Protein backbone atom coordinates (compact mmCIF):
# COMPACT_ATOMS: atom_id res chain seq x y z
CA UNK A 1 0.00 0.00 0.00
CA UNK A 2 1.61 3.14 -1.27
CA UNK A 3 -0.51 5.35 0.91
CA UNK A 4 0.49 3.54 4.10
CA UNK A 5 4.13 3.83 3.14
CA UNK A 6 3.63 7.53 2.73
CA UNK A 7 2.11 7.74 6.19
CA UNK A 8 4.94 5.74 7.75
CA UNK A 9 7.56 7.77 5.96
CA UNK A 10 6.22 11.07 7.25
CA UNK A 11 4.82 9.77 10.49
CA UNK A 12 6.76 12.19 12.70
CA UNK A 13 4.89 15.10 11.06
CA UNK A 14 1.56 13.38 11.41
CA UNK A 15 2.20 12.53 15.04
CA UNK A 16 3.03 16.15 15.86
CA UNK A 17 -0.04 17.21 13.90
CA UNK A 18 -2.32 14.73 15.68
CA UNK A 19 -0.97 15.79 19.06
CA UNK A 20 -1.46 19.49 18.29
CA UNK A 21 -4.96 19.00 16.90
CA UNK A 22 -6.02 16.91 19.89
CA UNK A 23 -4.56 19.42 22.35
CA UNK A 24 -6.13 22.34 20.55
CA UNK A 25 -9.51 20.58 20.36
CA UNK A 26 -9.44 19.32 23.93
CA UNK A 27 -8.55 22.62 25.57
CA UNK A 28 -10.85 24.63 23.30
CA UNK A 29 -13.65 22.24 24.16
CA UNK A 30 -13.08 22.67 27.90
CA UNK A 31 -12.64 26.44 27.76
CA UNK A 32 -15.37 26.94 25.17
CA UNK A 33 -17.91 24.89 27.11
CA UNK A 34 -17.12 26.68 30.37
CA UNK A 35 -17.34 30.09 28.72
CA UNK A 36 -20.46 28.98 26.89
CA UNK A 37 -22.09 28.05 30.19
CA UNK A 38 -21.28 31.45 31.66
CA UNK A 39 -22.46 33.23 28.51
CA UNK A 40 -25.70 31.32 28.62
CA UNK A 41 -26.33 32.39 32.22
CA UNK A 42 -25.68 36.01 31.18
CA UNK A 43 -28.03 35.59 28.28
CA UNK A 44 -30.78 34.32 30.59
CA UNK A 45 -30.08 36.88 33.29
CA UNK A 46 -32.61 39.46 34.36
CA UNK A 47 -30.15 42.31 33.93
CA UNK A 48 -30.63 43.89 30.53
CA UNK A 49 -27.02 44.99 30.14
CA UNK A 50 -25.58 41.52 30.78
CA UNK A 51 -28.15 40.05 28.46
CA UNK A 52 -27.25 42.53 25.72
CA UNK A 53 -23.51 41.87 26.09
CA UNK A 54 -24.06 38.13 25.78
CA UNK A 55 -26.42 38.50 22.83
CA UNK A 56 -24.02 40.74 20.91
CA UNK A 57 -21.14 38.38 21.63
CA UNK A 58 -23.05 35.34 20.44
CA UNK A 59 -24.30 37.03 17.27
CA UNK A 60 -20.86 38.38 16.33
CA UNK A 61 -19.05 35.10 16.86
CA UNK A 62 -21.68 33.07 15.05
CA UNK A 63 -21.87 35.60 12.25
CA UNK A 64 -18.21 35.78 11.24
CA UNK A 65 -15.98 33.05 9.78
CA UNK A 66 -13.66 31.23 12.16
CA UNK A 67 -10.81 31.83 9.73
CA UNK A 68 -11.28 35.58 10.13
CA UNK A 69 -11.55 35.27 13.92
CA UNK A 70 -8.30 33.34 14.14
CA UNK A 71 -6.48 35.92 11.99
CA UNK A 72 -7.99 38.74 14.03
CA UNK A 73 -6.74 37.27 17.30
CA UNK A 74 -3.33 36.39 15.90
CA UNK A 75 -2.56 39.58 14.01
CA UNK A 76 -4.80 41.81 16.12
CA UNK A 77 -2.89 40.99 19.28
CA UNK A 78 0.22 42.41 17.62
CA UNK A 79 -1.38 45.40 15.92
CA UNK A 80 -3.54 46.49 18.85
CA UNK A 81 -1.61 45.31 21.87
CA UNK A 82 1.91 44.94 20.54
CA UNK A 83 2.00 41.34 21.78
CA UNK A 84 3.77 38.79 19.64
CA UNK A 85 1.40 35.96 20.33
CA UNK A 86 2.25 32.31 19.96
CA UNK A 87 0.18 30.94 17.09
CA UNK A 88 -1.09 27.95 19.09
CA UNK A 89 -2.31 30.27 21.83
CA UNK A 90 -4.01 32.52 19.29
CA UNK A 91 -5.77 29.53 17.75
CA UNK A 92 -6.78 28.24 21.19
CA UNK A 93 -8.30 31.60 22.10
CA UNK A 94 -10.14 32.00 18.81
CA UNK A 95 -11.53 28.46 18.69
CA UNK A 96 -12.61 28.65 22.35
CA UNK A 97 -14.32 32.01 21.92
CA UNK A 98 -16.06 30.78 18.78
CA UNK A 99 -17.22 27.53 20.33
CA UNK A 100 -18.47 29.34 23.45
CA UNK A 101 -20.99 31.23 21.32
CA UNK A 102 -22.46 28.02 19.91
CA UNK A 103 -22.39 26.15 23.21
CA UNK A 104 -24.16 29.06 24.94
CA UNK A 105 -27.05 28.80 22.51
CA UNK A 106 -27.19 25.02 22.82
CA UNK A 107 -27.32 25.18 26.63
CA UNK A 108 -29.93 27.93 26.50
CA UNK A 109 -32.16 25.81 24.29
CA UNK A 110 -31.66 22.93 26.72
CA UNK A 111 -32.62 24.94 29.78
CA UNK A 112 -35.65 26.35 28.03
CA UNK A 113 -36.70 22.89 26.89
CA UNK A 114 -37.26 21.80 30.51
CA UNK A 115 -40.92 22.09 31.47
CA UNK A 116 -41.82 25.17 33.53
CA UNK A 117 -43.57 22.87 36.00
CA UNK A 118 -40.17 21.54 37.07
CA UNK A 119 -39.15 25.01 38.23
CA UNK A 120 -42.43 25.47 40.03
CA UNK A 121 -42.32 22.10 41.78
CA UNK A 122 -38.77 22.66 42.94
CA UNK A 123 -39.30 26.24 44.11
CA UNK A 124 -42.55 25.25 45.83
CA UNK A 125 -40.58 22.75 47.91
CA UNK A 126 -38.46 25.64 49.14
CA UNK A 127 -35.34 25.09 47.04
CA UNK A 128 -33.56 28.23 45.92
CA UNK A 129 -33.13 29.37 42.35
CA UNK A 130 -29.55 28.08 42.28
CA UNK A 131 -30.42 24.70 43.82
CA UNK A 132 -33.24 24.29 41.32
CA UNK A 133 -30.92 25.10 38.43
CA UNK A 134 -28.23 22.72 39.62
CA UNK A 135 -30.25 19.73 40.80
CA UNK A 136 -33.41 19.86 38.70
CA UNK A 137 -33.01 21.90 35.52
CA UNK A 138 -29.41 21.36 34.39
CA UNK A 139 -29.38 17.55 34.65
CA UNK A 140 -32.47 17.41 32.45
CA UNK A 141 -31.14 20.09 30.11
CA UNK A 142 -27.83 18.28 29.64
CA UNK A 143 -29.65 15.11 28.72
CA UNK A 144 -31.73 16.99 26.16
CA UNK A 145 -28.81 18.79 24.55
CA UNK A 146 -26.28 15.97 24.45
CA UNK A 147 -26.80 15.20 20.74
CA UNK A 148 -26.46 18.88 19.82
CA UNK A 149 -23.43 19.27 22.07
CA UNK A 150 -21.80 16.21 20.50
CA UNK A 151 -22.41 17.77 17.11
CA UNK A 152 -20.74 20.99 18.23
CA UNK A 153 -17.70 19.10 19.54
CA UNK A 154 -17.30 17.25 16.24
CA UNK A 155 -17.54 20.57 14.39
CA UNK A 156 -14.95 22.03 16.72
CA UNK A 157 -12.41 19.31 15.94
CA UNK A 158 -12.87 19.83 12.21
CA UNK A 159 -12.75 23.61 12.49
CA UNK A 160 -9.39 23.55 14.24
CA UNK A 161 -7.93 22.83 10.79
CA UNK A 162 -8.22 26.56 10.22
CA UNK A 163 -5.39 27.04 12.75
CA UNK A 164 -3.00 25.89 10.03
CA UNK A 165 -3.58 29.24 8.29
CA UNK A 166 -1.68 31.10 11.01
CA UNK A 167 1.10 28.52 11.12
CA UNK A 168 -0.01 26.20 13.92
CA UNK A 169 1.57 22.79 13.37
CA UNK A 170 -1.70 20.91 13.44
CA UNK A 171 -2.82 17.95 11.33
CA UNK A 172 -3.79 20.08 8.36
CA UNK A 173 -0.45 21.82 8.45
CA UNK A 174 1.35 18.47 8.65
CA UNK A 175 -0.57 17.33 5.62
CA UNK A 176 0.51 20.41 3.68
CA UNK A 177 4.13 19.74 4.61
CA UNK A 178 3.83 16.16 3.43
CA UNK A 179 2.22 17.32 0.17
CA UNK A 180 5.06 19.65 -0.63
CA UNK A 181 7.89 17.33 0.39
CA UNK A 182 6.51 14.21 -1.27
CA UNK A 183 5.30 16.05 -4.40
CA UNK A 184 2.03 14.20 -3.98
CA UNK A 185 -1.15 16.25 -3.91
CA UNK A 186 -3.83 13.64 -3.34
CA UNK A 187 -2.64 10.86 -1.03
CA UNK A 188 -1.75 13.09 1.93
CA UNK A 189 -5.25 14.52 1.79
CA UNK A 190 -6.74 11.04 2.02
CA UNK A 191 -4.54 10.30 5.01
CA UNK A 192 -5.45 13.51 6.82
CA UNK A 193 -9.15 13.03 6.12
CA UNK A 194 -8.96 9.52 7.56
CA UNK A 195 -7.23 10.80 10.70
CA UNK A 196 -9.77 13.60 11.23
CA UNK A 197 -12.55 11.10 10.69
CA UNK A 198 -11.19 8.66 13.26
CA UNK A 199 -10.95 11.49 15.80
CA UNK A 200 -14.50 12.74 15.23
CA UNK A 201 -15.96 9.25 14.95
CA UNK A 202 -14.43 8.25 18.28
CA UNK A 203 -15.85 11.36 19.89
CA UNK A 204 -19.36 10.87 18.54
CA UNK A 205 -19.29 7.23 19.70
CA UNK A 206 -18.28 8.44 23.19
CA UNK A 207 -21.14 10.93 23.21
CA UNK A 208 -23.45 8.11 22.13
CA UNK A 209 -22.34 6.03 25.12
CA UNK A 210 -23.02 8.97 27.42
CA UNK A 211 -26.45 9.46 25.86
CA UNK A 212 -27.36 5.85 26.56
CA UNK A 213 -26.09 6.17 30.14
CA UNK A 214 -28.30 9.18 30.72
CA UNK A 215 -31.40 7.52 29.34
CA UNK A 216 -31.73 5.30 32.44
CA UNK A 217 -34.79 7.16 33.65
CA UNK A 218 -36.86 6.84 30.45
Amino acid at each position, binding site marked *: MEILDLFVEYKQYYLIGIKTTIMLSFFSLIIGTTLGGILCLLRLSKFRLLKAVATVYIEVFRGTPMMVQIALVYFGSYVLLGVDMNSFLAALIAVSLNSAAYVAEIIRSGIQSVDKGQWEA*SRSLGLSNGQTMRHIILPQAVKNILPALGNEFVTLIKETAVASTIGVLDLMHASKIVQSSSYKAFDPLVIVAAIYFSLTFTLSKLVGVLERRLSYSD
Partner: protein
Amino acid sequence: MIKIVNLDKYYGEKQVLKNINLEIKEGEVVALIGPSGSGKSTLIRCIDYLEEPTSGEIYINGKNIADSGKDIDKIRQNIGMVFQHFNLFPHKTVLENITLAPVLTGRMSKEEAEDKAIELLKTMDLLDKKDSYPASLSGGQKQRIAIARSLAMEPKIMLFDEATSALDPEMVGEVLKVMKDLAESGMTMVVVTHEMAFAKEVADRVIFMAEGEIVEENTAVDLFENPQNPRTIEFLSKVL
Protein backbone atom coordinates in the same frame (compact mmCIF):
# COMPACT_ATOMS: atom_id res chain seq x y z
CA MET B 1 -52.60 31.14 59.14
CA ILE B 2 -53.18 32.52 55.65
CA LYS B 3 -54.53 36.02 55.26
CA ILE B 4 -55.17 37.62 51.89
CA VAL B 5 -55.97 41.33 51.76
CA ASN B 6 -57.26 43.24 48.73
CA LEU B 7 -55.47 40.98 46.25
CA ASP B 8 -55.52 42.01 42.59
CA LYS B 9 -53.81 40.20 39.76
CA TYR B 10 -53.54 41.33 36.17
CA TYR B 11 -52.14 39.50 33.15
CA GLY B 12 -51.36 42.51 30.99
CA GLU B 13 -54.68 44.35 30.67
CA LYS B 14 -56.77 41.44 31.83
CA GLN B 15 -57.72 41.35 35.49
CA VAL B 16 -57.84 37.74 36.67
CA LEU B 17 -58.25 38.35 40.41
CA LYS B 18 -60.43 41.17 41.72
CA ASN B 19 -60.03 42.38 45.27
CA ILE B 20 -59.75 39.01 46.98
CA ASN B 21 -60.04 39.00 50.77
CA LEU B 22 -59.72 35.70 52.53
CA GLU B 23 -58.60 34.29 55.82
CA ILE B 24 -57.84 30.64 56.44
CA LYS B 25 -57.35 29.32 59.93
CA GLU B 26 -55.06 26.57 61.11
CA GLY B 27 -56.50 23.11 60.48
CA GLU B 28 -59.13 24.41 58.12
CA VAL B 29 -59.84 22.69 54.81
CA VAL B 30 -61.01 25.15 52.18
CA ALA B 31 -62.20 24.12 48.74
CA LEU B 32 -62.10 26.59 45.86
CA ILE B 33 -64.66 25.82 43.18
CA GLY B 34 -65.87 27.63 40.11
CA PRO B 35 -65.85 27.54 36.31
CA SER B 36 -62.54 27.43 34.39
CA GLY B 37 -60.95 30.81 34.08
CA SER B 38 -62.51 31.99 37.33
CA GLY B 39 -59.09 32.60 38.93
CA LYS B 40 -59.03 29.67 41.40
CA SER B 41 -55.68 28.36 40.24
CA THR B 42 -54.16 31.83 40.05
CA LEU B 43 -55.28 32.49 43.61
CA ILE B 44 -53.79 29.28 44.99
CA ARG B 45 -50.57 29.92 43.05
CA CYS B 46 -50.37 33.39 44.57
CA ILE B 47 -50.38 31.83 48.04
CA ASP B 48 -47.17 29.99 47.15
CA TYR B 49 -45.87 33.10 45.34
CA LEU B 50 -45.57 31.21 42.07
CA GLU B 51 -47.62 34.12 40.74
CA GLU B 52 -46.78 37.60 41.88
CA PRO B 53 -49.83 39.62 42.94
CA THR B 54 -50.22 42.94 41.13
CA SER B 55 -51.40 44.56 44.33
CA GLY B 56 -52.61 43.55 47.77
CA GLU B 57 -50.98 41.48 50.46
CA ILE B 58 -50.69 37.84 51.39
CA TYR B 59 -49.65 36.97 54.91
CA ILE B 60 -48.48 33.50 55.90
CA ASN B 61 -48.37 33.24 59.67
CA GLY B 62 -48.27 37.02 59.83
CA LYS B 63 -45.43 37.41 57.34
CA ASN B 64 -46.07 39.37 54.17
CA ILE B 65 -44.67 37.12 51.45
CA ALA B 66 -44.12 40.01 49.04
CA ASP B 67 -41.59 41.49 51.49
CA SER B 68 -39.89 38.20 52.22
CA GLY B 69 -37.13 38.62 49.60
CA LYS B 70 -34.76 35.70 50.01
CA ASP B 71 -36.87 34.30 52.85
CA ILE B 72 -39.45 33.21 50.29
CA ASP B 73 -37.67 29.84 50.17
CA LYS B 74 -38.09 29.47 53.93
CA ILE B 75 -41.78 30.30 53.71
CA ARG B 76 -42.29 27.88 50.84
CA GLN B 77 -40.65 25.11 52.85
CA ASN B 78 -43.71 25.25 55.10
CA ILE B 79 -46.19 25.19 52.24
CA GLY B 80 -46.66 22.08 50.14
CA MET B 81 -48.02 22.40 46.65
CA VAL B 82 -49.51 19.65 44.51
CA PHE B 83 -49.92 20.33 40.81
CA GLN B 84 -52.35 19.15 38.19
CA HIS B 85 -49.53 17.60 36.14
CA PHE B 86 -47.62 16.15 39.13
CA ASN B 87 -44.28 17.70 38.09
CA LEU B 88 -42.23 14.87 39.52
CA PHE B 89 -38.53 15.11 38.73
CA PRO B 90 -38.15 12.59 35.89
CA HIS B 91 -34.39 12.12 36.33
CA LYS B 92 -34.72 11.09 39.98
CA THR B 93 -36.08 7.90 41.49
CA VAL B 94 -39.21 7.99 43.60
CA LEU B 95 -37.12 7.93 46.77
CA GLU B 96 -34.84 10.71 45.50
CA ASN B 97 -37.85 12.80 44.51
CA ILE B 98 -39.05 12.64 48.10
CA THR B 99 -35.72 13.06 49.91
CA LEU B 100 -34.27 15.80 47.68
CA ALA B 101 -35.85 18.86 49.28
CA PRO B 102 -35.54 17.87 52.98
CA VAL B 103 -31.84 17.14 52.47
CA LEU B 104 -30.96 20.14 50.26
CA THR B 105 -32.74 22.60 52.52
CA GLY B 106 -30.87 21.20 55.50
CA ARG B 107 -34.06 20.18 57.23
CA MET B 108 -33.05 16.52 57.59
CA SER B 109 -29.99 14.35 57.22
CA LYS B 110 -30.00 11.88 54.36
CA GLU B 111 -30.87 9.01 56.71
CA GLU B 112 -33.70 10.91 58.38
CA ALA B 113 -35.10 11.93 55.00
CA GLU B 114 -34.99 8.34 53.75
CA ASP B 115 -36.72 7.04 56.86
CA LYS B 116 -39.36 9.71 56.45
CA ALA B 117 -39.77 8.89 52.74
CA ILE B 118 -40.15 5.18 53.43
CA GLU B 119 -42.73 5.89 56.10
CA LEU B 120 -44.68 8.10 53.67
CA LEU B 121 -44.44 5.52 50.88
CA LYS B 122 -45.79 2.90 53.25
CA THR B 123 -48.85 4.98 54.07
CA MET B 124 -49.38 5.56 50.34
CA ASP B 125 -48.94 1.83 49.74
CA LEU B 126 -46.17 2.56 47.22
CA LEU B 127 -43.09 1.27 48.99
CA ASP B 128 -42.38 -1.20 46.18
CA LYS B 129 -41.94 1.75 43.80
CA LYS B 130 -39.21 3.50 45.75
CA ASP B 131 -36.44 2.78 43.24
CA SER B 132 -38.59 3.29 40.14
CA TYR B 133 -38.42 6.34 37.92
CA PRO B 134 -41.56 8.46 37.47
CA ALA B 135 -41.87 7.47 33.78
CA SER B 136 -42.84 3.94 34.84
CA LEU B 137 -45.68 5.00 37.15
CA SER B 138 -49.39 5.51 36.51
CA GLY B 139 -50.94 8.96 36.91
CA GLY B 140 -52.49 8.11 40.25
CA GLN B 141 -49.20 6.75 41.56
CA LYS B 142 -47.36 9.83 40.33
CA GLN B 143 -49.74 12.15 42.10
CA ARG B 144 -49.51 10.21 45.35
CA ILE B 145 -45.72 10.38 45.11
CA ALA B 146 -46.01 14.13 44.48
CA ILE B 147 -48.09 14.45 47.64
CA ALA B 148 -45.53 12.40 49.57
CA ARG B 149 -42.78 14.63 48.19
CA SER B 150 -44.55 17.70 49.58
CA LEU B 151 -45.32 16.04 52.90
CA ALA B 152 -41.68 15.06 53.38
CA MET B 153 -40.98 18.73 54.10
CA GLU B 154 -43.49 18.51 56.98
CA PRO B 155 -45.41 21.55 55.76
CA LYS B 156 -47.97 23.45 57.80
CA ILE B 157 -50.14 24.16 54.77
CA MET B 158 -50.93 22.03 51.72
CA LEU B 159 -52.16 23.53 48.47
CA PHE B 160 -53.80 21.32 45.84
CA ASP B 161 -54.18 22.80 42.37
CA GLU B 162 -56.65 20.55 40.52
CA ALA B 163 -54.74 17.54 41.77
CA THR B 164 -57.07 15.02 40.15
CA SER B 165 -57.96 16.81 36.90
CA ALA B 166 -55.28 15.15 34.79
CA LEU B 167 -56.02 11.64 36.06
CA ASP B 168 -57.89 8.84 34.38
CA PRO B 169 -61.25 8.43 36.12
CA GLU B 170 -60.34 5.13 37.81
CA MET B 171 -57.36 6.77 39.51
CA VAL B 172 -59.13 9.77 40.95
CA GLY B 173 -60.33 7.83 43.98
CA GLU B 174 -56.93 6.75 45.22
CA VAL B 175 -55.66 10.34 45.21
CA LEU B 176 -58.78 11.75 46.83
CA LYS B 177 -58.47 9.18 49.58
CA VAL B 178 -54.95 10.36 50.39
CA MET B 179 -56.20 13.94 50.45
CA LYS B 180 -59.09 13.01 52.68
CA ASP B 181 -56.83 11.22 55.15
CA LEU B 182 -54.62 14.28 55.19
CA ALA B 183 -57.56 16.56 55.91
CA GLU B 184 -58.65 14.31 58.75
CA SER B 185 -55.17 14.43 60.24
CA GLY B 186 -55.71 18.16 60.80
CA MET B 187 -53.65 19.60 57.94
CA THR B 188 -54.50 23.12 56.80
CA MET B 189 -55.51 22.68 53.18
CA VAL B 190 -56.57 24.80 50.24
CA VAL B 191 -57.96 22.67 47.46
CA VAL B 192 -58.85 23.83 43.98
CA THR B 193 -61.12 21.10 42.69
CA HIS B 194 -63.82 20.05 40.28
CA GLU B 195 -64.74 17.09 42.51
CA MET B 196 -67.88 18.48 44.14
CA ALA B 197 -68.58 15.35 46.15
CA PHE B 198 -65.11 15.58 47.63
CA ALA B 199 -65.50 19.29 48.43
CA LYS B 200 -68.82 18.62 50.08
CA GLU B 201 -67.55 15.74 52.16
CA VAL B 202 -64.11 16.95 53.18
CA ALA B 203 -64.05 20.76 53.12
CA ASP B 204 -64.93 22.85 56.16
CA ARG B 205 -65.61 25.80 53.93
CA VAL B 206 -66.28 26.11 50.22
CA ILE B 207 -65.56 29.22 48.20
CA PHE B 208 -67.24 29.77 44.86
CA MET B 209 -65.30 31.96 42.45
CA ALA B 210 -66.31 33.41 39.10
CA GLU B 211 -64.56 35.92 36.86
CA GLY B 212 -61.80 36.59 39.38
CA GLU B 213 -64.08 37.30 42.31
CA ILE B 214 -65.20 35.44 45.39
CA VAL B 215 -68.91 35.23 44.70
CA GLU B 216 -70.00 33.21 47.67
CA GLU B 217 -68.49 31.34 50.58
CA ASN B 218 -70.05 29.18 53.19
CA THR B 219 -69.75 25.88 54.99
CA ALA B 220 -69.75 22.99 52.57
CA VAL B 221 -73.24 21.82 53.48
CA ASP B 222 -74.80 25.28 53.26
CA LEU B 223 -73.11 26.24 50.03
CA PHE B 224 -74.12 23.08 48.23
CA GLU B 225 -77.60 22.71 49.69
CA ASN B 226 -78.60 26.30 50.04
CA PRO B 227 -76.65 28.52 47.62
CA GLN B 228 -77.65 32.20 47.68
CA ASN B 229 -76.04 33.88 44.70
CA PRO B 230 -77.65 33.26 41.27
CA ARG B 231 -74.22 32.55 39.75
CA THR B 232 -73.52 29.90 42.37
CA ILE B 233 -76.93 28.36 41.76
CA GLU B 234 -76.34 28.30 38.02
CA PHE B 235 -72.87 26.75 38.38
CA LEU B 236 -74.01 24.10 40.85
CA SER B 237 -76.96 23.17 38.67
CA LYS B 238 -74.49 22.39 35.88
CA VAL B 239 -71.98 20.35 37.86
CA LEU B 240 -74.06 18.49 40.41
